[in-house]
């Protein structure tokens, strides 16, 4: 069971700030982390490997500092890490990213399964996983909450808005996972120390034979026109007094706001 996990390094977005001129996320002074859903993807791959044998290869497309995210994946127990790092990939939208990752996977060669997080917490599109499956021409299961390998088939439980769906899918396939699928392990210190010294394979666009018109800004039909954080909620008001007073004040406040109650 050889699994490729695609991860993304994202800013810890508890407090997203956007540069009003470039519409890009301000990354200075913001800690970079592995996209949380991708940690679930790594954990899912490790569990499948631990139960069925094989190898887990983690792939990341990003700047040199994304190596940190890959080291975290190695510390969790992944066997190999590949960083696709090329200035030509800068500005890739989901179409270009899925193309580039498909080239990486093709260069890796044989695999049984690709696992991605359901979406990244910065862009929140959820398109790269499905896009990658389309590029590779393999079946896909999104929003998996459970994975089980039986008879060279993967049984995946999907979570949808108001129902679960159980699907059998032939391999190779691509799965995107939700947070509830597992609890990512904390890496042991022995692995942390080992991962620090581990070799991380670094590939460029040329290494994966990427067509430069399909990656980076040139390969990205999407233009982000404007990004802005949602307006902050006001502080609200706390009403004091006995029940009668508070209820009267609350009813008055609702009336004033002209909110339909029903």
């Amino acid at each position, binding site marked *: 069971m050889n699994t490729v996990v695609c991860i993304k390094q994202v800013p810890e977005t508890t407090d997203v700030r956007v540069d009003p001129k470039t519409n890009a996320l301000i990354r200075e002074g913001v800690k970079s982390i592995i996209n949380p859903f991708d940690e679930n993807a790594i954990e899912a791959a490790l569990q499948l490997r631990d139960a069925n044998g094989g190898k887990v290869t983690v792939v990341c497309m990003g700047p040199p500092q994304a190596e940190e995210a890959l080291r975290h994946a190695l510390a969790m127990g992944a066997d190999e890490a590949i960083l696709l790092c090329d200035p030509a990939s800068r500005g890739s939208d989901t179409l270009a990213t899925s193309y580039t990752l498909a080239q990486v996977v093709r260069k890796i060669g044989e695999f049984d399964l690709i696992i991605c997080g359901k979406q990244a917490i910065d862009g929140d599109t959820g398109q790269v996983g499905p896009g990658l499956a389309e590029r590779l021409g393999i079946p896909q299961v999104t929003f998996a909450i459970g994975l089980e390998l039986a008879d060279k088939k993967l049984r995946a439980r999907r979570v949808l808005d108001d129902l679960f769906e159980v699907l059998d899918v032939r391999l190779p396939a691509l799965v995107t996972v939700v947070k509830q699928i597992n609890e990512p*392990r*904390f*890496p*042991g*210190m*022995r692995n*942390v*120390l080992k991962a*620090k010294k581990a070799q991380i394979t670094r590939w460029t666009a040329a290494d994966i034979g990427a067509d430069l018109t399909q990656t980076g800004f040139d390969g990205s039909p999407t233009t982000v026109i404007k990004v802005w954080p949602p307006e902050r909620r006001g502080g609200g008001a706390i009403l004091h007094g006995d029940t009668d007073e508070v209820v009267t004040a609350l009813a008055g406040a609702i009336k004033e706001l002209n909110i339909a109650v029903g």
Partner: protein
Amino acid sequence: MDFTFNEDQSAVIDAVREFCDEDLAPKAQETDEAGRWPAENVRKLAELDLMGIPVPEEYGGLGMDFLTWSAVGEELSRACTTTGAVYGAHVLCVYPIMLFGTEAQKKKYLPPLAQGEHIGAFGLTEPGAGSDAGSVSTKADKDGDHYILNGTKIFITNGGEAQTYVIIANVDPSKGTRGMTAFIVEKGTPGFEFGKNERKMAYPSLPNRELVFTDCRVPKENILGRERGGFLVAMRTLGVGRIGMAIGAVGLARAALEAAIPYSKQRVQFGKPISSFQAIQFMIADMATEIDAARLLTWRAAWLKDQGKPFEREAAMAKLYASETAMRVTTKAVQIFGGYGYTKEFPVERYMREAKLFEIVEGTSEIQRLVIANQVLRGSSE
């Protein structure tokens, strides 16, 4: 003296901090209120390779230094004081085996301890031997290739849950400290039983049990160090134990400060956040300064230990200052929270109760002052 952490140390400390923030700290209240051994947390410490940080790699540890062990202890204690205490007490069994163990003892006992499959405990205190550690009356009578232990230890942290115990007994009580002898005793040895688990002011989930020895036969191979060398084993163990206690106190004090800071910014009185008042600012300034001073004293002791230099005086200073800092800082944190600080809605009242422990265990503040004064008056160390 350089406290810049190298890459390995930083990697370990960062990874531990992440575990603490995401896993340990959010469950700390629950861990405390459960009133039972935090098995899940202890299992995770083992999985994270944290139970044998200073143990050489050949015995299953990480082979890192006591400074790293201290920095990790601070993070654990800051996140969950109970779990930090288990970690600290564990080393009171691991360290004397590292230091005094024969090759056979190290091979047998250290790997499971370092990997956290076994938990360790250290048994010195008795009803009549607290600050006066030399008056241990647990008797060890020689009988051929065995010693027969009789007596009772009290307040033993990790007692009952630990598998491996370093026990200080006396082969000749009339000789006082010169009869004291250290033994490794395993849980399940006939004649070794557990008595009362103390109900304490804080730490309901941390076991502090009586160890009861009734004609407990221990083979002579289990003597740690040499016969009548137990006082030295105890003193050396307490030296490192004091570093552990000091850093636990620093972690706890930091937790209290880190709770007080956001509260003081958010709590509005007289139309302003209370953090804008000098009375509160001065408290915060003192808390932060004392915590830094306590940490630096502790790191100095750990660093000296790692350099193979004497550190007894420095460890006593660190333990004294850090535990009294924890008491002052947690008391101020409660004060900053005001009435809310006195309620169970916020953790600071627990921190204040927990802090008191540090002024008592592993040598009271008074004993630390005696140790320090002794050394200072003798003119030893710097």
